[in-house]
């Protein structure tokens, strides 16, 4: 089992792109939530989470995405997700949370989804 790595980028347009790699479960989930809060606090209120290299996500991971969405919206922004794997998409669909966190096919699509 590998620990999650989390890369962050701020694009020239000010949108933050976060890339969790590996397993997005309990410990990693609180790390992700903390990073979302951090970038939102720095004024990057639109956050895209690129899930392409997130191998596995459980309900704690989903909780972190929802928590991040709340932080971003409270600051007048948004959190969007892109490129989920089949397993991540399954979690979103089973829980109906794809209604709240709609998966986008690419980071560009997520950025333009305003």
């Amino acid at each position, binding site marked *: 089992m590998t620990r999650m790595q989390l890369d962050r980028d701020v694009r020239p347009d000010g949108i933050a792109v976060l890339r969790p790699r590996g397993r997005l479960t309990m410990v990693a989930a609180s790390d992700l939530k903390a990073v979302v809060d951090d970038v939102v606090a720095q004024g990057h209120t639109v956050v895209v989470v690129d899930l392409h290299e997130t191998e596995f996500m459980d309900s704690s991971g989903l*909780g972190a995405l929802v928590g991040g*969405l709340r932080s971003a919206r409270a600051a007048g922004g948004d959190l969007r997700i892109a490129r989920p794997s089949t*397993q991540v998409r399954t979690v979103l669909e*089973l*829980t*109906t949370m794809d209604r*709240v966190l709609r998966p986008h096919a690419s980071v560009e699509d997520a950025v333009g989804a305003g």
Partner: protein
Amino acid sequence: MGGAQQGQSDRVAEHERVAAVRRLGVLDTEPEERFDRVARLAQQLFHVPNAMVSLVDADRLFYKAHIGTAVTQIPRRHSFCSMAIAEPATFVVEDASADPRYSANPYVAGDPRLRFYAGQPLVAPGGHRVGTLCVADDRPREFSAADRALLGDLARWVEKELIVEAELERAASVQAGLLPAAPPVLDGYDVAGACLPARAVGGDFYDWDVVPGGVTVTLADVMGKGMGAAIIAATVRAVLRASSRARGVDGALADTQAAVEPDLLGSGSFVTAFHARLDTTAHELSYVDAGHGLSLLVPADGGGVRRLTSTGPPLGIPEYVGERLVTRLALAPGDLLVTFSDGVLDVLDGTLASVDRVGDAVRGATSAQDAVDRVLALAPAGVERPDDLTVLALRRSGAPAGAPGHASSEGKDDA
């Protein structure tokens, strides 16, 4: 107070103290890095050969961490740790052989020829002094006020680690207390459930409750681990039970949401649930699926296994504006309903393909208990699970119409 009374109250206090030690669940467990780390740090900071995390049991010391010695337990009598827990302050003996109170102590006069000892009592959540973080040397040493403060800080760290363990134990007992004791006796149906907890206690539970005309069944999963999730699970169960007596399945879930939503929003958690009511006369199951999505209807007539999709949002997600719809299913003889937690999915590959594997496994199950056993058997034995495995099954007795056995059950009715 007379001497006899004093002795009596001391004995009661000591009895409670020993109970507090044992409740920690640490006695006779393997060494763990989280305790070894603190003992190693103490040994290095004070430049001593020995550092221990000791727990003072009724008549022995158990060393949860022991740096510089392979010994894991010693008799309590004459031990310095036992003397150290008599008072809250740091217990320090700078040169035992020069002090007439200790020079004849067997640990001083004999092996390990102890000269220096400093022990900081460890206090359990109830206030009992359960053991020490201690350092020792076979040479005399001085121990300054700054040294005492440092040892005290390290001891607070050990206390935190001890509470984590105790909290897991308590959460496990709260969780176990949520599960119904025996399956309900129902006319024409059987129900079974199981919950195999992971090491980190989660907020899964299943429940059933006999109500006029039938039974309610529930499987719910609170996101998160530990005491917080277990307490929310207990509230969800209590409100669902109480509300289901007067309200439909959707009303009961709405009441539950109202009760727990403030806690859920505060903690950033949410709850998924499958909640159903079976009418055992009309053979109709009404259910609401709040973001659970992991329930299967396995028809006895050999038709395809049907996954019951969610009929509305999880509890604690106000961002999802939508109703939770009630769905009704007719159950024919031999039909089986199985609902399970995502922990089951995760021991497979976590995708919808693993839902099909669960369906294949339970097809042909001869009872609700058989179906539960078959789902649990999907988890590899001996592998540590990251999440609880929780399963609930409900089966209508009998064989499908037209199958062998159906006629004989009707014949019995005629008799």
